[in-house]
């Protein structure tokens, strides 16, 4: 079984600080492996454990993303492909997924491609489906668990808003994963960290993947971010600290006025 996991290093936005104007302070944010991707990797490693094979990880990112890639190797991935080239600067999800799909084809073929359902910085959830579309292979998003692999098919549990579906796909296929509540992420073990140093780490440039260069980077990106700003604030309203009954009555009066209760 040849397995590939697409990963991304992201800024840790779980504990963001803001300046006096309510603007997020981006400096000093720690870089971490996208949690969705770590879950995808842990599913891939579990599949390798069950069915054997090799797990590679791949990222398209500047050099500093090596930290996240090393973590993947320390967690148990066998091989890393790091695509890094200025030609990819300014890529949106379409250009990124195009370049990734080429690199996947170049280094493959793979039986299963794992991806995080989304990354916690951009939160688009595009990369998985779009890589699958460029490669014309089936895919499923919101995959909480890979159930089994059998007779050239993969069965996955994919979340709906109000339940889930069990979906079977012919391999090769792509699964975009979302961790279940309470998922316990592994920490790289000491020996994993030491072994990671000697695992194959393959750097790739734009020239190493065959494709239409006009679709790389900013030129290949249909979308443009034109403005960034802090989210609009709601004003702090009336906060009661005194008698509960009185507070409740005041609020109910207001709700009646606004016809929320009639």
């Amino acid at each position, binding site marked *: 079984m040849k397995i590939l996991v697409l990963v991304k290093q992201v800024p840790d936005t779980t504990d963001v600080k803001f300046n006096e104007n309510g603007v997020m302070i981006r400096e000093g944010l720690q870089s971490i492996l996208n949690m969705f991707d770590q879950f995808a990797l842990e599913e891939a490693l579990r599949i390798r454990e069950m069915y054997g094979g090799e797990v590679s990880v791949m990222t398209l990112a500047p050099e500093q993303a090596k930290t996240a890639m090393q973590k993947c190797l320390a967690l148990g991935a066998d091989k890393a492909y790091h695509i890094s080239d200025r030609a990819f600067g300014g890529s949106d999800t379409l250009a990124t997924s195009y370049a990734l799909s080429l690199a996947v084809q170049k280094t493959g073929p793979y039986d299963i491609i794992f991806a995080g359902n989304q990354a916690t910085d951009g939160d688009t959830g595009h990369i998985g489906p779009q890589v699958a579309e460029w490669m014309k292979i089936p895919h499923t998003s919101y995959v909480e668990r890979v159930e089994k692999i059998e007779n050239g098919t993969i069965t996955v549990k994919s979340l709906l808003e109000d339940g889930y579906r069990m979906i079977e796909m012919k391999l090769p296929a792509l699964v975009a994963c979302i961790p279940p509540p309470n998922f316990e992420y592994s920490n790289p*073990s000491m020996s994993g960290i030491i072994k990671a140093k000697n695992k194959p780490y393959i750097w790739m440039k734009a020239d190493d993947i065959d494709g239409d260069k006009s679709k790389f980077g900013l030129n290949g990106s249909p979308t443009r971010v034109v403005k960034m700003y802090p989210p609009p604030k709601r004003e702090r309203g009336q906060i009661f600290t005194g008698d509960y009954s009185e507070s409740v009555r005041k609020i109910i009066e207001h709700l009646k006025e606004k016809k929320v209760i009639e």
Partner: protein
Amino acid sequence: MVDFTFTEEQEMIRESVRDFARKKIEPIALKMEETHKIPDDVIEGMAEMGLIAPTVSSKYGGQDFDPVTAGIIAEELSRADPTGSIPVFYLVQASWGHVFNKYGTEEAKKEILPNVTKGKWFLGIATTESDAGSDVLGTKTTIQKVGDKYVVNGEKMYISGVREAYTRGGGHVTIAKQFPEKGAKGMTLFYLPLQSKGIIPQYVDDLGREGISTGGFTIDNVEIPSHYIIGQEGKGFYIVHEGYEYARGLIAVICAAAGLKSLERGENYLKQRKAFGMPLAKFEGLQFKLAEHYTKLSYLRWGAYNALWTYHQEILGKASRFEVSKAIAMSKMFAQEWACEAIDDVMQWQGAFGYTRECVDQVAWRAVRSFGWAEGAKEIMKVIVSRELLGKDYTAYK
């Protein structure tokens, strides 16, 4: 050249241990005050991560870690466990694992060390007795060769991890007199399994670090096989100092980390708590205290890493034992005092709450206070440094 950076792997180790400690240790740390036990799943988790005696060779399930890397782990464990229990559990096994790994017989290492690194057994150190602490030569416990075996008699006191080794398995690197007439050259170091027939444990009620036991045991005609001898007969006094020094370096890191962590809690408190219409953090009297403690503890932290680095240099054959002894003694000399002073002030800032059992900092204070004695009292550190400065001719104690 001086380069105060850690390697990429060391940074990764720090991050991984920090995250593990945040998830698995922080939530249970204060509970150990009542349970008097490190939870089994924490020990299992530490073993899976490779955090128990990582100084041991990978042949026996260790990680071949150098002293600086071992220090990084100690630092992160200390930040997460204010009771100091897990740091003690760690530092004792890391230090004496190193000694065992270096001087133990192949047969003993194969038999014992994998059980230690897997977290099944506890590996401790037993030198002190009721009447012999810093003065190792005052040891009364004896070891005698009888046929192809050895027989041990005596008692040990103020030993960490007695209950752990007595109930879980494992034992203590123990020192005893073999040739009383030979003084320092008559002492032998050996591994003493605490589940041996003839061991009777007893326990003391420590002020802190409740998750790991302290106690002693009487040794009544306990037989041990010859392959349990660590190093050679008569070399115990010299070998034991290598373990002490390893442990002292780790203790210095642990003290710095506990103090700095307490200061972090203190900083938050100073910013949040208001008095006379402004946050406490605006009062210069408190600011200066914070700045002084932070500076001292940062010096302490780097001094400790310097000491552990020097220890590593000796392993690599690039430094002498004396250089190590001095650097280590310097790092431990003020470790407990400075950390306790900082924590004491953090308690002070919190007003009457600082004197309640709810206040985390008093837990940390009680834990750190133990390091004023553990693995060599601070007074001994001064003896060592003066000896290195003035030469042996001016040493009052032999």
